[in-house]
């Protein structure tokens, strides 16, 4: 039988534990100050809006485990729905326009990936370029004005429909993608190659892994997820805003880091990212509910990053020490 001490040690070896603990503490905190925080309507709002950034954070998490960054996801998040709307305005069928938008997002990721791995320029720089370029294109094409998205109801339902109480289609996308990426990362050869590429590229190469291909595929996934998240948000809002997704790249990276993903690559968890995404939205929403000034959001997220990473490092040291002692 597993004794109490072993159970705690095993529990502490899970990176997701710290963020899950913070999540529970945060929910309790906001509920104790303002019980309306857990009212059905507020919970429904939270569940509806969370997947948009969450889908982007899934792509970012995989890319960060692979040892790279993507600062362009916020701009792609704004640019792709804008492009999709332009196609629809020019008579393209909405489904075809969405598929084209997603293909363009994949192409953007392909360009970022190829430039990064072939030139050796850090992805921080190449995707910073992407951030400015795709935001610039959005602004230039629209003249800085919002564009309205008119989508047939049955198509909109596929992305944002409510299928049951507290269950929205964007949640289905989010959890389906999280499950699929979890399978890829933990249960396939490619997942092993992602960890190795981010952890020690030279080792992966020496063992025959094409690390350039791994990274390019991860850049494509990152952009693709940003495009999909952007399309879902535009469908929910019924419009694409020129500044849509502004600053989202830092929110997505923050979510991945809070969830336990290493900034240095080679380590991370998608479950942690999912929990951290809910934590991030709950802090934002909770501050509004308790009527704290909205400017505090980033301050709190900053604090949570420091706390979560500190707790993760502490847990890691404890688990190593307990392993050595045992």
């Amino acid at each position, binding site marked *: 039988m597993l004794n109490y001490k072993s159970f705690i040690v095993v529990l502490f070896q899970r990176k997701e534990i710290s963020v899950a603990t913070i999540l529970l503490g945060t929910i309790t905190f906001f509920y104790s100050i303002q019980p309306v925080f857990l009212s059905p309507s507020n919970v429904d709002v939270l569940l509806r809006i969370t997947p948009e950034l969450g889908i982007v954070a899934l792509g970012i998490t995989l890319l960060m485990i692979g040892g790279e960054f993507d600062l362009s996801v916020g701009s792609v998040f704004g640019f792709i729905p804008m492009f999709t709307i332009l196609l629809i305005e020019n008579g393209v069928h909405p489904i075809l326009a969405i598929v084209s938008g997603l293909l363009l997002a994949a192409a953007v990721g392909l360009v970022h990936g190829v430039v990064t791995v072939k030139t050796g320029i850090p992805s921080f720089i190449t995707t910073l370029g992407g951030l400015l370029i795709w935001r610039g294109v959005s602004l230039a094409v629209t003249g800085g004005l919002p564009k309205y998205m008119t989508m047939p109801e049955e198509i909109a339902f596929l992305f944002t429909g409510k299928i049951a109480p507290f269950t929205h289609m964007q949640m289905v996308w989010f959890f389906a993608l999280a499950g699929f990426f979890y*399978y890829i990362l933990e*249960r*396939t*050869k490619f*997942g*092993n*190659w992602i*960890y*190795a590429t981010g*952890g*020690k590229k*030279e*080792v*992966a*190469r*020496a*063992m*025959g*892994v094409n690390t350039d291909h791994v990274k390019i595929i991860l850049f494509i996934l990152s952009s693709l997820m940003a495009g999909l998240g952007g399309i879902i948000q535009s469908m929910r809002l019924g419009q694409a805003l020129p500044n849509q997704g502004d600053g989202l790249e830092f929110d997505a990276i923050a979510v991945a880091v809070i969830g336990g993903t*290493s900034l240095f690559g*080679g*380590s991370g968890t998608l479950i942690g990212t999912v929990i951290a995404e809910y934590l991030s939205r709950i802090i934002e929403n909770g501050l509004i509910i308790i009527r704290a000034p909205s400017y505090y959001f980033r301050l709190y997220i900053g604090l949570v990053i420091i706390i979560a990473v500190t707790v993760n490092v502490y847990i890691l040291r404890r688990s*190593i020490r307990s*392993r*050595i002692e045992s």
Partner: protein
Amino acid sequence: MSNHEPLVFMKGIHKWFGRVHALQGVDFKVFNSEIVGLVGDNGAGKSTLMKVLVGIFPPDKGSIIINGSEVKLKSPKDAMKYGIEMIHQDVMLAPLMNVARNIFLGREPQKLYGLIPMLDLKKMRIESLKCLKEIGLDGINPDVVIENLSGGQRQGVAIARALYFRAKLLILDEPTNNLSVKESGRVLQFISEAKNQGISSVFITHNLHHVHSIADRIVVMSHGRVVGDFKKDETTIEEVTKLITGEAPPKPELSS
């Protein structure tokens, strides 16, 4: 056995880096079940020669013959196909991944669940335990992350991996560097264990006591050339030291 056809014969190897002539017509042989100590000062060309053998650097001139057939090695993966594996100073293991995932990196076993391919984690674990046990590392849990192992244990895992995938020749680049006396002893034991299983090794090192305690043959390099090639029993540490430092004149290839 060892006096017949060599397992590996590098013939007249030249390598230039810009204007630097790093390897100047080197002949180098390794026979079956033989441990060769490859020694020399910094910049002698030891690591460069071995990087040519594992496909990291293509030779500018010369040929590589494995089991009697000339081969072209363009990458470490090519070398692995011929059973040649290099274990570098910093050990070719991903530090944040566990032992089992490292052992099977790039050669992961899969099984199908319906049409869905999945890593065979159970097989990876069981086979890892088996191959670690074969070189006396049965105390290591395959789920342990590499960065939690000692330097000697990491060398052991890398050697176990090479043995599991039927390597015929291990190239160990300074495997005892930065290790304690006890840990170094364990690594030398792993190399002996590999020899008992019929695996040859090339042991690159600066530590002449280590090489003398384990090698069957000692090859000395200086300034991109082989300046001495001895059966261990036919030389002394002093003689090898003089060849390395240039105090003694070069001795051409003696044993073959």
